């Protein structure tokens, strides 16, 4: 735990004297290590440490008899600010059927998340339709169909080969059958694949979704921000979903993506089953990163 690690660190460096500025700077090195080991992006860590150090060199800490506690509080509070206030809601206020696009890198958990979100929305009184717009990956459409069947949620999978057309037709189908939200599962793709990124731009232009969610793997490392930035540049997505947070990765990618794109984290994927979905709590995330 950060607290134990820090307390023993401070006991060691303080000895019997007062806490010096050098002591504070040394402690920042320790925090830097913790954040980098937690997969927080290198530049995000640098900026973060700069801000924290400035606060930590303030008089309250130097004069305090429990400087370790003070520094921890500063770090924790700064992390919460960076992670953003929790509970940012999906905007489903428009005229139904509302299109939602689910996008991200290969294998991040998009298809699974579509099923989870569909279940979540149905429990809130919505009538979701799942649209299978991944025409590339073997059995991707089967996968979404099977998930829909498990949940008794309809899946639009017409055997059409053009993802843009699939998404447009899904809205038509939704209107016909009284579905008020359409969740569009797209193929995983690289942020550097121009053609595939353009496909997403075309889908977006065709259906004008009020919500585009970027699904990111919670175990992502330093590269997580590059992809997120590129997706944000091309699509200006509205929110982030972090998956596989039932693993033991510290999840620093969450902080990095949030800090660098400024987009809110909307949901956390916490398991493989359709009900393994939570809304994001910044304080829990902060404890996880520092823990």
């Amino acid at each position, binding site marked *: 735990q950060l607290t134990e690690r820090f307390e023993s660190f401070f006991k060691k460096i303080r000895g019997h004297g007062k806490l010096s500025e050098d002591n504070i700077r040394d402690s920042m090195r320790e925090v830097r290590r913790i954040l980098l080991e937690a997969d927080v992006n290198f530049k995000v860590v640098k900026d973060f440490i700069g801000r924290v150090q400035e606060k930590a060199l303030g008089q309250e800490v130097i004069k305090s008899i429990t400087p370790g506690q003070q520094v921890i509080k500063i770090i924790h509070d700064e992390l919460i600010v960076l992670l953003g206030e929790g509970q940012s809601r999906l905007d489903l206020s428009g005229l139904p059927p509302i299109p939602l696009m689910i996008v991200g890198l290969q294998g991040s958990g998009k298809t699974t998340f579509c099923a989870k979100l569909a279940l979540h929305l149905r429990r809130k009184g919505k009538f979701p339709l799942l649209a299978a717009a991944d025409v590339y990956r073997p059995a991707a459409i089967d996968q979404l169909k099977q998930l829909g069947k498990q949940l008794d949620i309809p899946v639009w999978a017409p055997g059409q080969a053009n993802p843009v057309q699939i998404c447009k037709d899904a809205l038509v189908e939704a209107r016909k059958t009284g579905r008020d939200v359409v969740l569009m599962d797209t193929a995983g793709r*690289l942020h550097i694949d121009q053609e595939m990124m353009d496909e997403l731009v075309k889908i977006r232009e065709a259906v004008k979704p009020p919500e585009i969610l970027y699904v990111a*793997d919670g175990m992502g490392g330093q590269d997580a921000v590059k992809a997120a930035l590129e997706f944000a540049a091309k699509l200006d997505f509205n929110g982030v979903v972090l998956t596989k947070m039932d693993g*033991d990765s510290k999840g620093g990618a969450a902080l990095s993506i949030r800090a660098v794109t400024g987009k809110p984290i909307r949901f956390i994927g916490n398991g493989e089953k359709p009900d393994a979905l939570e809304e994001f709590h910044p304080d829990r995330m902060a404890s996880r990163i520092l823990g």
Partner: protein
Amino acid sequence: ISSHSKISEELYDELEETLITADVGIDSTLAILETLREKVRKVSTNGDPEIIYDLLTDTIDEVMRPAAEEKPLNLGHTPSVILIVGVNGSGKTTTIAKLTYHFLKQNKKVLLAAADTFRAAATEQIVEWGDRLGVQVIQQGHGADPAAVAFDALQSAKARGFDILIVDTAGRLHNKANLMHELEKIYRAMKKQDPEAPHEVFLVLDGTTGQNALQQAKIFQETSGVTGLVITKLDGTAKGGAVIPICRELGIPLRFIGIGEKMEDLEPFDPSAFARALLA
């Protein structure tokens, strides 16, 4: 690596940033840079960054090469069994398609086992790949016992003289004891059929994974043994440096690199090419 007229601490800071942002992690980065400093002391570099760069690629190469060269792939049996393991979405099933293509080109007879009986359409996915490759897939459908699928596939592979059997398993997080126990059962079921099997256990790592990769390797190593690593998705911008701590601490060799979604998109591991790409 920019131009410096002497070996300054700035250069080492820059190299530290390069390695850490490549997911090499703090411990391995500091160890590699320490080795680099020793090399630099012994060689007259005249501060030439080109020489430093070469010394650094040598250092990384030296970390990764021994494990790969000391243990050649254990594939001379009838059949040689390769068990494919790893966390969710890392690229296992697609890697199996690529490995199959790789072995078919070497004129080997390959059989596949669909032992992911849990995830939606997992069997359909590997069967589709089997069709594209012209290779048979032993399957028992959704919800079957994965250990039974692996056992039957091995029995079939032996009876019909296949050179290679590759067993696909469900993605699983290493911190889930029940799932790791299931993997252990799959491993032991194959041993009942052939005490030498599986001859290779490849842990498939997502190239975008950060420091969690080492913990994944440790736990999979304890559960089913891991004889080799495959790292995927290096056609993106991730460098895959997380394999370096695994190599350093556990001595597990990197065997193949995934560079795309097609069956041809697999390369055997080349330590010096990997080192150069890491620093690029």
